[in-house]
């Protein structure tokens, strides 16, 4: 049984090469959640990147997203606790992480995108261990 109406429109063509750029920009503009679990655009702001350096206080190795927390000291020696979201454990494992890759007490520098609604939350896209300089990607839902 075929209950479909016919269609005569020409096939859509995508522009390779420049299309990559266009699609990349389109994606940057819309930041929809294509991968993993959540809606990046609904929770985080691609236009608010932030770099934080602080001391790891806790790691919650859990689904659907691993979170870790760092204490960040400002110029006035005031300490703010930040919560940072990464990808899911399965994605992090494939990216070379274990739950011991980053330990409480360790100093890290995090590249992240700030949350829309919570001043001290962000989506981490990379973590650099200050002691070794080792940089780990976070399998996050943000663009690298």
């Amino acid at each position, binding site marked *: 049984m075929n209950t*479909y109406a016919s269609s005569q429109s020409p096939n859509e063509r995508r522009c390779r090469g420049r299309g*990559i750029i266009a699609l990349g920009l389109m994606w940057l503009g819309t930041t929809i959640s294509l*991968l993993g679990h959540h*809606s990046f655009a609904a929770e985080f702001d691609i236009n608010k990147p932030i770099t934080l350096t602080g001391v790891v206080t806790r790691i919650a190795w*859990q689904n*659907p997203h691993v979170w870790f927390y760092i204490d960040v000291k400002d110029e006035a020696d005031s300490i703010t606790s930040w919560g940072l979201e990464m990808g899911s454990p399965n994605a992090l*494992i494939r990216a*070379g992480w274990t739950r011991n890759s980053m330990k409480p007490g360790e100093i890290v520098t995090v590249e992240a995108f700030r949350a829309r609604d919570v001043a001290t939350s962000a989506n981490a896209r990379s973590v650099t261990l200050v002691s070794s300089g080792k940089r780990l990607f976070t399998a996050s839902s943000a663009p*690298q």
Partner: protein
Amino acid sequence: MTKQVLNCLSVRMVFTTSVIVLSLLRPGEAQWVGHLMPGLPRGADGKPNLQAAAPRTADGKPSLSGVWHAEPELGGEVGPGGLVLPKYMANVTRDQPPDTLLRPAAATLFKARADNLYRDSPSLQCLPLGVAWLDTYTHPFKIVQNPGLIVILYESQTLFRQIFMDGRTLPDDPQPAWLGYSVAAWEGDTLVVSTAGFTDKTWLDARGHPHSEAMRLTERFMRRDTGHMDIEVTVDDPVYYTRPFSYTQPHRLLPDGELIEYICNENNAAHFPLVDKKP
């Protein structure tokens, strides 16, 4: 921003993401370190020969068994996480004439999902993505092929799917199911899987192309060689689409890889709203 800057940005993005993809697609080293997949053709150095002829089962049919993942599209769209997406993960209609494919009800639903920033995605709710989306998704799946029954274990949401080859036919009046009801038969070396009885809660892709409960999916599994398999998907949903349409998603074997559980709901409730997310 100048065009040159955009070019540089794009090149950097593709380069960086390619590196990440490569790292993401390594075997799960932290899991089952050094475990070699038995029966895989290997060279003298022990590395899998992914171009070797596809292995066959005792009955002479191609063996589809193994851990597979949808292949990132060469030069393709960069998605969240920096991954280069599999060709049809974001949009299963990308090869179709866009103006005529969706019936008005589907177009309305599609737009509403975009307007809502995809908050109602089954993915966001830790629900099954649906068969079509799973066929193009980045999480791997494992095919276990037995006579009379093929099982697919999906890492995404840690799901199982049974594809019966024991002579049964599709149910006449099925209760809607997240992954539907699947039967299969061989056409030469191609496994043709027919699935019906879907809930309409799943999406066809990440952009939220909808489907109705009337949808029938046909998946044609073609293992080209040891390391490569195509899945040609045909969506037949006269309620939401003006005609059937097909696309072919290439897959790669994850040699010596293994699935890793993904129990999405472990702490998903904490995602709503974000302020309560901190565990």
